[in-house]
């Protein structure tokens, strides 16, 4: 695998997709307002939950805001990379253009996962970071080296898990052709990531940490921010992330064996 070649190709991807997206400038503005409103809406919802209670699932309001911030960052990443690219797989398979992707002298997973970019997601990521810095201040978190490494490890693991989930669902398109709705199901499950895991009942907690590891995506990084996290949880997240990445890769290669174009 030639890393320099891939970097060069990625630069070209960035250039072309940014150029085409910037054609719709008002769209980007509308998307920014949408991101802000949806953040305001979920803080409003949280404030309803907390209006007569000091704690929810053992989390204070200020602490739960960290989860919102991390969710916003991850959602921004989803909107920037995963959503525009992985919904494209559905199109590739329906219209038969996956053949062209497979013929290219480049890794097919790399191509379909990073081809496009949606710049309005960047604004959402920045919004999430702003909220995160605000939360670090109101929760009086001390920033030191070990905190920074741990939080960046957990957040990158969350990104890997999130990517693998999206990629898994999109790969099933090879058999089912239309998976728009499966993506909607994933979206509605991911919505759970906005709330601390402990606020759900025991059975749902098990479901969201074993079957769909949404618990790992936002709750564990937030615990790291609050200094509540224990080492085994972080290690577990790293293991889950690696397992997900490897299996999603294997699954893609496996699924490609079942892909047949119109004349084959």
């Amino acid at each position: 695998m030639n890393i320099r070649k891939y970097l060069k190709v990625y630069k070209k991807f960035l250039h072309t997709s940014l150029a085409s997206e910037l054609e719709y400038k008002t769209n980007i503005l509308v998307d920014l307002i949408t991101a802000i409103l949806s953040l305001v809406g979920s803080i409003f919802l949280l404030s309803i939950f907390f209006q007569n209670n000091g704690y929810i699932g053992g989390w204070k309001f200020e602490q739960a805001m960290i989860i919102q911030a991390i969710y916003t960052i991850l959602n921004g990443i989803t909107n920037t990379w995963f959503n525009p690219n992985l919904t494209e797989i559905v199109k590739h398979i329906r219209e038969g253009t996956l053949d062209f992707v497979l013929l290219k002298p480049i890794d097919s997973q790399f191509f379909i996962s990073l081809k496009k970019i949606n710049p309005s997601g960047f604004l959402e990521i920045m919004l999430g970071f702003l909220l995160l810095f605000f939360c670090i201040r109101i929760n009086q978190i001390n920033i030191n080296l070990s905190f920074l490494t741990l939080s960046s490890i957990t957040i990158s693991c969350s990104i890997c898990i999130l990517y693998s989930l999206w990629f898994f669902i999109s790969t099933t398109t090879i058999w089912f052709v239309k998976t728009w709705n499966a993506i909607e199901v994933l979206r509605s499950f991911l919505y759970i990531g906005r709330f601390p895991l402990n606020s759900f009942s025991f059975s749902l907690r098990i479901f969201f940490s074993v079957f769909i590891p949404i618990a790992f995506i936002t709750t564990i990084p937030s615990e790291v921010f609050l200094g509540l996290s224990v080492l085994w949880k972080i290690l577990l997240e790293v293991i889950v992330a690696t397992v997900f990445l490897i299996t999603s890769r294997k699954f893609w290669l496996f699924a490609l064996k079942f892909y047949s174009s119109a004349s084959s």
Partner: protein
Amino acid sequence: MLEYRVEIALWAISGIIPFFMLNIWTNNNLNESINISDVSLSRYFLCAFFVRQFSVVWVVFSFEEDSLMGKVSPYLIQPLNPFFRYFAQHLAEQITRFPFALIIAFFFFIFNPESIWIPNLGILLLSIVSTFLSFLIQFLIQSIVACLCFWTEKASSIERLLFIPTLFLSGLLAPVVSFPAYVKSWIYLTPFPYLIDFPANLLSGNETNISGGLTMQILWIFLLFPLFKKIWTEGTKKYTAMGS
């Protein structure tokens, strides 16, 4: 529609967010502070799920695709407003969705047997009417947004923007009763609480102002319909097909 059974089943599953919200509410005893019992809250969220299933609208996405692909031109020649076509599609899909929604409700009652209730016939009919009115309001709003396609091409991002207040203010995630007073003072003047909160309260047998709610729903339809008519005639004048 029956060709895509799995799709529709998945659609039905993707609407289960109200149940997750219910889980947060009851698991943390949040409902005590707003004087709603566990049972009536779980009924409320089940009804919210049902109302949402039968009032969800996606006309803007279909219309955007059709107008970008140039499929609108042949529709315009036909002596029928193309939105009737989408309207019929929506109705057909709602009927197909009904059995799946029933299955989900069945599972819900297995986990929450104490919340089983049978609404009386009059209430049931009224809530079907109000759900349909809520569907009409949303259909009109989205059709108006869809007509913006004639000007901007990508109207779906405006729809996503409008979806945010719908999500948070309609009562899908939290009943409107629980909202703080500074929101309650103006929210009943907007169309949002009549989309989910009002029909869901009606169906679940909670206290609600029936005649007031229905009047507001009809009022909004009368307000939105002329607006849609106007934007449609303006838009079709603006519309240029390939080659013209």
